[in-house]
């Protein structure tokens, strides 16, 4: 079980701005710093945070790294659509109501 290593990789991405640039320049090379399985490395490189969360990766971290990997535009809806398997999240309705 190396989900701990996924958390280490994600936490590093969140704490070190240079790590994001390293990841974007060479994802496989960056991830090989960590003791990840081939499956875990593939899920990260394919942006499959839902599967990683389903396997126990802390969702504080998946929530944190999504905008780093995909850009902050569309947060949190794009992230939540991904986490809901492609379905728009129920919480969008709250944002469509007037907040006056």
């Amino acid at each position: 079980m190396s989900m701990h290593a996924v958390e280490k990789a994600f936490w590093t991405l969140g704490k070190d701005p240079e790590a994001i640039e390293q990841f974007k320049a060479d994802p496989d090379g960056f991830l090989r710093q960590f003791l990840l399985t081939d499956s875990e490395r593939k899920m990260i490189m394919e942006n499959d945070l839902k599967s990683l969360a389903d396997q126990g990766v802390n969702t504080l971290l998946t929530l944190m790294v999504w905008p780093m990997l995909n850009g902050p535009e569309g947060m949190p809806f794009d992230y939540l659509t991904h986490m809901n398997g492609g379905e728009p999240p129920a919480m969008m309705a709250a944002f469509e109501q007037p907040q006056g």
Partner: protein
Amino acid sequence: MAEIVGGFIVSHDPMITGNPEIANKKQVANVDAAFETIVERLKELRVDTVIVVGDDHYTMFGPHCLPQYLIGVGELEGPEENWLRIERYQVENNVPLAEHIMNYGFANGFDWAVAKSLLLDHGTMIPIHKAITPIPGVRTIPIYLAAAVTPIIPMRRAQQLGAMIGDAVNAWDKDERVAVFGCGGISHWVGTAEMGRVNEEFDHMILNHVNNGDIEALIALGDDYVLENGGNGAWEIRNWICAMAAMKKLTGETLCYEPMPTWITGVGFSELKVA
């Protein structure tokens, strides 16, 4: 002789300062009014020091070190997060009392993790900034429980820790009027598919247990039930349990409850009164 003269359940939703615009304005005003009430009550109670029980969000601590419970005994500053719209500043600790609580714990079976300097995240810094900083001279002792990052501290251990903290304060031979904050909650799903869901029925049940001073009812819920009905964020009620246990006998009074899906949380505040 030191004594705990009161306590509060305090939301630490980072949106309180980080993004108030996205929420219903009336609800935001009610939350701000709750903080103002806490400030006034701390003044009325002539509180010198607040023990603030919160939790990290993979912000302060990392996979390399995840303390079950930690006390900050020295230099404090916060917040860690630059998106809270709070400029980072020094927070005054009560070092002698913090060290006394630390040592009392060591002597009574509680092997604290200890921080001689600590950069506080929103888990304590929102309550500090909104309710303590406005009162000059009131000092803060931060305590962090593992509530958002697994392995989380068992609720029973949080209760035992709180009871020890209460004993430690009572054993302090200096005059000190102490309050405790239990920070966080109530229902919220952080980063999961359900994020934005608020379970009002669950939240009211939790607040009722708080107001009855019924720590055992909160512990009896169990982490699986809390996760299912209140989300991973509701595991933060162990911070509340710790604060309540420090007070021994108490009754509570809800100051504010607002279900706020755009803030992804059921936001609750209660005053804990010594019974």
